[in-house]
């Protein structure tokens, strides 16, 4: 081995380490570059993909649309319009050309003259300014002289088209310029006139095309394509300064606001690029003003990963709402509403919260406010009474002191004065109490309980049924509102005993049996099923607002049910909130008063305060006869399971169990939903939930499930609510707890959609940090809509009526009402009600739907309907809210001013009457006239009283096209046809119409709105005479 061979410089190579290092260097460089470009900027990839996919989609989309467009363009009509347009253009062409030539001469002349003119004018302008700032009068004069000289100076002006130049002064130029400009304007106006026909046809032709292409037209697509050509990869953000909101969501969600509706399918399956599904919603909530995250949640600033941007980490307080709870975002600003348009899940959640009795235990701002107001009113009355008593006592002491001869004259005078002042002030308290009494008079009507009164159990129920029910209400009646409490047998016995023993006792009239067959028919057609359902499992039909009555016969007492069906609000004993007791006949006889208490007799005989004279149920009176009530009750008594047996429950009379039961009833918060003797003033036992969605997560007690929740990713508000709602005892799992320490919330047997709805509602119930302008608190008529919805929901108006577009009623779902004869038996739609009826009439109707004090076994308007508009005994406030609600929905101005109609001539009155009674016109064949014989077969409202009920403008729109307002209505369309600019009757008209040139639909409306009793007689006699003729 030579030295050379040993020399490491010669022999050892560094190429290996060098290579490794250089490779590492290159790798880290590449990695660095990649990370810089895409790794921490994933949105760049999204943008690049979006551009590619969108471009591809647009190309495709153009094809079918383009084909359709070609078809339309080759259609005869389009061709005709094109021909006409071309002809018009050709016709106008020579004149237009002549004008264009003239304009082409003038325009360069104006431009050429403008320069020298402006030069002089600005010179004069600057001199004028100098005059203004020069102090000495001589200086001013010299400047004025300069201006004058400038004006007199002539200039050589050569305008295009002029043979030779002219000498012109400033004023000459001014005049000429104005002249030429006027001439130009004139010519252009002429041109517009000449081209008018062409422009109009061209517009028609464009409309013909756009009316027939459902999606985006090729033009829209092209313009989108053009903007896509300028697509830049950059961060797209919305910045709202006053809230300091930065939302960069659209850096990835690029299709959100595209004019072309993009779906995941059209964008290669990438959901991220889909357009916002509800453009209408975006229109109201412009993202440039509202941003994205205020509604959707998530971290709007974050761009580095999807998880971060969506706020799905432990430390981000407002994570993105999941799809099933997406409407939670609505709740934070629409917090005052029970119904929010376009938020069906949220509305369902609110409705469950209200209807299923969540609000009985959990306070929530705005829900069950009548109950809160009721207790605060009673309390205030008490305080004021005490105050008054104190003042009167003090006044007495003062007088006593003053009357003492040892008191000095001066002091006595002062004391008398003081005593008088106190008395006077106490009369002010009387006035205040009077106001509060009036309010409680309304509240007595408004306050409702979720469940039935338990004061009445002894009269209403079979004793043995109560413990069976308490054990598992859902097992006994599927889908009931009553939740299942986790009670042991002893608890059930104690509660049953308490309820039974605390019930009032009273006399029920003995009822003779009714006819269950008739009762069934009445139950199915009177409207009971708009709220109640009948049948079990797949057989179930009817509404879910109130109880399913398939087993009513097993639990109820017939005599009581008759009373209940006849008037559900009737109580056995009135309750005096002031004295906190149920009054008996004795209380009345003490004062020599009959034991009568109803909405006309509401004062407590003992203290004069307002009594609770009604059952706190939303169930209305259908104004049935007693016979019909007996029929329905008899039918209900037949509804039972054949093999049902109930064990003896003698323990329910054990007085020792009663106290234990009272404690349990209080513990479980039964009084939240039921009226119970002695527990009328119970407070809610649950947590307030108004801001539950923003409660810090560490304050939600996941108990032993915390770790599991974290691992499984449901340690969130959503996860907490969902698990709790599915199994209210879930957070007791594994806990060693005494019975009384365990979670009390009962099981509501919620379905998955129910849980989603309630979770949505609670997730949105947050302490919002948004500024006031975000909140939906309109000061205009929309406020009336918010208020009205609460009443509409409370009484389930939507069980019978369509109140808003897209809604179905219970009648729509019932088998019987699919038959064409029964279709027309559905209660009327209330869409557009505000424009249809006179609000004053509506107020009267809501108060008394029979429209009669004496003849109440009828419907005031539609006597031919089997279903009946019930008497709800609304308070004045509720009626006002309902009327304003309908007014606001139809954009009616308040206060109401009736529309005027033109007076009728005698001739016109005769004509209208003849038309109404002619064989060619169907009006009187269906509409009631108030003649009992005729009305017996009538199937439409009485139009002779239309003037009190309807509005003329609506009436005309209705008779012209009823199907437009109420699809499926019995009122036929096509009664009138267009004749020039008026409407004429489509059928044969009486001879008197010959030569009548006015609008015939108007004539009939004017006739209806100027109807008199005399005219009614004339109409009836001519209808009778006409009936004999063919």
């Amino acid at each position: 081995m030579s030295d050379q061979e040993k020399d490491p410089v010669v022999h050892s190579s560094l190429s290996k380490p060098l290579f490794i290092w250089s490779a590492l260097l290159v790798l880290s460089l590449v990695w660095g570059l990649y990370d810089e470009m895409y790794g921490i900027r994933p949105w760049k990839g999204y943008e690049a993909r979006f551009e590619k996919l969108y471009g591809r989609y647009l190309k495709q989309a153009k094809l079918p649309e383009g084909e359709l467009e070609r078809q339309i363009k080759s259609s005869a009509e389009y061709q005709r319009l094109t021909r006409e347009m071309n002809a018009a253009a050709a016709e106008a062409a020579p004149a237009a050309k002549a004008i264009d030539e003239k304009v082409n001469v003038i325009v360069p002349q104006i431009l050429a003259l403008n320069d020298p003119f402006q030069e002089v004018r600005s010179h004069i302008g600057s001199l004028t300014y100098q005059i203004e700032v020069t102090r000495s009068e001589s200086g001013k004069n010299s400047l004025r002289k300069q201006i004058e000289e400038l004006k007199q100076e002539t200039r050589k002006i050569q305008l295009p088209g002029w043979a030779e130049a002219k000498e012109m002064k400033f004023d000459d130029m001014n005049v000429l310029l104005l002249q030429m400009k006027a001439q130009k304007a004139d010519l252009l106006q002429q041109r517009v006139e000449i081209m008018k026909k062409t422009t109009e046809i061209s517009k028609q032709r464009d409309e013909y095309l756009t009316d027939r292409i459902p999606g985006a037209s090729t033009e829209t697509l092209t313009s989108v394509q053009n903007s896509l050509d300028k697509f830049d990869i950059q961060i797209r953000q919305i910045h709202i300064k006053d809230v300091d909101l930065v939302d960069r969501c659209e850096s990835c969600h690029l299709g959100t606001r595209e004019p072309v509706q993009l779906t995941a399918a059209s964008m290669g399956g990438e959901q991220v690029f889909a357009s916002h599904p509800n453009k209408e919603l975006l229109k109201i909530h412009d993202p440039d003003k509202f941003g994205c995250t205020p509604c959707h949640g998530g971290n709007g600033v974050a761009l580095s990963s999807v998880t971060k941007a969506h706020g799905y980490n432990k430390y981000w307080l407002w994570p993105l709402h999941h799809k099933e709870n997406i409407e939670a975002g609505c709740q934070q600003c629409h917090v005052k509403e029970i119904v929010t348009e376009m938020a069906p899940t949220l509305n369902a959640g609110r409705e469950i919260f209200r209807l299923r009795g969540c609000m009985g235990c959990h306070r929530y701002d705005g829900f069950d406010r009548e109950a809160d107001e009721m207790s605060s009113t009673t309390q205030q009355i008490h305080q004021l009474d005490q105050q008054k008593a104190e003042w009167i006592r003090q006044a007495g002491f003062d007088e006593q002191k003053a009357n003492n001869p040892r008191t000095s004259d001066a002091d006595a005078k002062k004391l008398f004065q003081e005593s008088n002042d106190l008395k006077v002030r106490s009369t002010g308290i009387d006035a205040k109490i009077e106001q509060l009494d009036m309010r409680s008079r309304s509240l007595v009507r408004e306050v409702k309980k979720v469940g039935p009164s338990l004061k009445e159990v002894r009269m209403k129920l079979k004793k043995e049924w109560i413990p069976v029910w308490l054990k598992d209400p859902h097992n006994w009646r599927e889908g009931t509102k009553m939740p299942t409490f986790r009670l042991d047998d002893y608890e059930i016995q104690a509660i049953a005993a308490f309820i039974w023993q605390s019930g009032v006792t009273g006399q029920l009239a003995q009822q003779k049996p009714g006819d269950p067959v008739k009762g069934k028919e009445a139950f199915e057609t009177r409207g009971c099923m708009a709220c109640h359902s009948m049948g079990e499992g797949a057989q179930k039909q009817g509404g879910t607002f109130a109880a399913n009555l398939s087993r009513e016969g097993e639990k109820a007492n017939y005599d009581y049910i008759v009373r209940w069906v006849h008037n559900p609000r009737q109580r056995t004993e009135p309750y005096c909130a002031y004295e906190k007791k149920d009054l008996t006949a004795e209380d009345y006889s003490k004062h020599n008063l009959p034991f009568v208490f109803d909405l006309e007799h509401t004062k407590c005989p003992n203290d004069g305060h307002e009594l609770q004279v009604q059952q706190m149920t939303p169930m209305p009176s259908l104004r049935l006869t007693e016979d019909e009530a007996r029929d329905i009750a008899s039918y209900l008594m037949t509804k039972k399971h054949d093999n049902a047996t109930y064990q003896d429950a003698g323990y329910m009379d054990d007085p020792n169990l009663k106290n234990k039961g009272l404690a349990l009833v209080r513990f479980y918060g039964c009084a939240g939903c039921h009226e119970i003797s002695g527990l009328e003033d119970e407070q809610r036992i649950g947590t307030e939930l108004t801001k539950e969605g923003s409660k810090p997560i560490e304050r939600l007690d996941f108990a032993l499930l915390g770790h599991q929740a974290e691992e499984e990713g449901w340690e969130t508000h959503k996860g907490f609510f969902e698990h709790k709602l599915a199994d209210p005892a879930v957070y007791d799992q594994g806990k060693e707890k005494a019975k009384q320490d365990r979670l009390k919330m009962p099981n509501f047997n919620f379905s998955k959609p129910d849980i989603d709805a309630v979770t949505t509602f609670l997730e949105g119930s947050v302490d919002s940090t948004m500024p006031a302008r975000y909140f939906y608190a309109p000061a205009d008529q929309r406020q009336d809509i918010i208020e009205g919805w609460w009443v509409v929901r409370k009484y389930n108006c939507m069980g019978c009526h369509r109140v808003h577009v897209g809604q179905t009623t219970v009648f729509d779902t019932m088998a019987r009402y699919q038959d064409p004869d029964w279709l027309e038996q559905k209660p009327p739609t209330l869409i557009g009600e505000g424009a249809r009826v006179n609000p004053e009439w509506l107020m009267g109707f809501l108060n008394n739907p029979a429209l009669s004090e004496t003849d109440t076994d009828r419907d005031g308007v539609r006597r031919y309907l089997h279903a009946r508009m019930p008497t709800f005994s609304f308070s004045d406030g509720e009626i006002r809210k309902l009327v304003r609600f309908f007014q606001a929905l139809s954009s009616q101005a308040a206060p109401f001013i009736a529309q005027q109609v033109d007076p009728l001539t005698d001739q016109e009155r005769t004509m209208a009457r003849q038309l109404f009674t002619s064989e060619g016109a169907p009006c009187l064949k269906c509409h009631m006239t108030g003649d009992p014989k005729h009305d017996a077969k009538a199937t439409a409202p009485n139009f002779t009283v239309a003037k009190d009920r309807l509005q003329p403008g609506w009436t005309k729109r209705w008779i012209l096209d009823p199907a437009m307002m109420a699809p499926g209505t019995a009122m036929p369309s096509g009664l009138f046809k267009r004749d020039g600019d008026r409407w004429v009757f489509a059928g044969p008209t009486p001879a008197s119409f010959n030569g009548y040139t006015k609008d015939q639909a108007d004539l009939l409306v004017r006739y209806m709105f100027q109807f008199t009793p005399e005219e009614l007689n004339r109409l009836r006699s001519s209808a009778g005479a006409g009936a004999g003729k063919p």
Partner: protein
Amino acid sequence: MKKIWIGAGVAFALTLVGCGGSSNETAKTDTPAATTPAGGAGGDAVPDEANGATVTGKVAFDGAQPKMATIDMSDKPVCVKAHTTPVKSEEVIVNGNHTLKNAFVWVKSGLPDKTWKIPASSVELDQTGCMYSPHVIGVMAGQNIEIKNSDPTNHNIHPAATVNADFNQSQSPGAPAIMKSYPRQEVMIPVKCNVHPWMRAYIGVVSHPFFAVTGDDGTFTIKGLPPGTYTIEMVHEKYGKQEQQVTVGAKDSKTVDFSVKS
């Protein structure tokens, strides 16, 4: 040796760069272009009566003609006048040969996926003597129904369609016939007149030409069926629906009888 290493290094680096460049591309296949919309004028398939199969049959009625209610027209004198004897409801009409009239029979399923030609002729539905005539009609989806008013009084025609668009049109005496067609299959659409609530007719709208209505002899014939297995359904306003299966070959003649009990 050195050169190999360096070369390999460069190649490696280049590969990495190459990968970096392409890793951002997502492999997505083109979605197929949307199909062009079908024309609205129906297809061109017609029943082949020469080579197709024929299904005939009758709807037997077991029992006596049920007593039909007399229609009370008393409040509409024009209607009363149109009849010499009181008019009975047409809900159930039993023919002399113990068969049921006005039953609608149609091929409910089993047909090949074809678009059938819509007949150019229209089917008449007349209003005469304040009754509909005929009481039951069948049309193809898209085929015109010609609604006439032969009465000297006003009628309104109000079919209660559920999967087709609803209409309710007034028709004065002497007014021209109203032409209507239903684009979708619907068996049956009840028709009523709100002015004369007793009036009732039924329209069977079928997406193909294989249907029939039993007449005074209670029989029906469906011609030109392609070979195959079919579900034949009989529909009657009072007696509901019945189904039967039938398999036919080319030029076959099969009988499918239905039977209804009172």
